[in-house]
């Protein structure tokens, strides 16, 4: 069945938020450096999933690698700007 446009937009928004969050706090860009040369914004799916797992592990969430509601809930919380994966 067709997915309502609003749901696609919501998903797109969530993925954007997640990429920004993981870039900032889990060094996302470094792990997909191979792709960065071709397209600054391209992030491999596996890299994203690995970073989501790293974030889920840090926060004691179920480690699924998926952008589930518990994971989104943490990403939407106000927080400190210092990375969780220390640089």
């Amino acid at each position, binding site marked *: 069945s067709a997915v309502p446009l609003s749901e696609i937009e919501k998903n797109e928004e969530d993925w954007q938020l997640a990429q920004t969050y993981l870039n900032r706090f889990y060094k996302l860009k470094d792990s997909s450096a191979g792709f960065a040369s071709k397209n600054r914004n391209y992030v491999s799916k596996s890299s994203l999933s690995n970073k989501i797992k790293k974030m889920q592990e840090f926060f*004691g969430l179920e480690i699924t690698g998926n952008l589930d509601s518990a994971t989104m809930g943490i990403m939407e919380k*106000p927080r*400190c700007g*210092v990375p969780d994966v*220390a640089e």
Partner: protein
Amino acid sequence: YNHFPGTIKWKKDKITYRILNYTPDISSTDVDTAIWRALKIWSDITPLKFTRIFEGEADIMISFGAREHGDNYPFDGANGLLAHAFPPAAGIGGDTHFDEDETWTMGSNGYNLFLVAAHEFGHALGLAHSRDPGALMFPTYTFASVNEFRLSQDDVSGIQALYGASNEI
């Protein structure tokens, strides 16, 4: 608790701090008090001593700024990122920045400046984020009554692993 790579810390016990500007959300006297109290929770349990200076370069330079504020780590408007601090080092090391687009408060009707400052000063002294949800050094903001505030054992163990316990009897 976690430390930064290389377990970086200040190589001295006497640390200076300077408040460079103020938020219009609360009085400057309240900002002074919140900052003083946020440093005191760390000096109470270690040999560290904090001295405020009013000109020149302090170890911990404290300021309020919005969006891009001069360190290439821009804030993001209201909510989201609240503040950040740099680990111990010369220059920008130790410096602590608060997002001026937030509503700062001494209570709970906004983001409590004492609680956020106490967390950020943990970074400025060498603590990274903790995975203990009850620790001050947990990454996300949770309001707690300032008058009943206590550091968790995780926070105490983390800072004393760097500087030892207070040497005051």
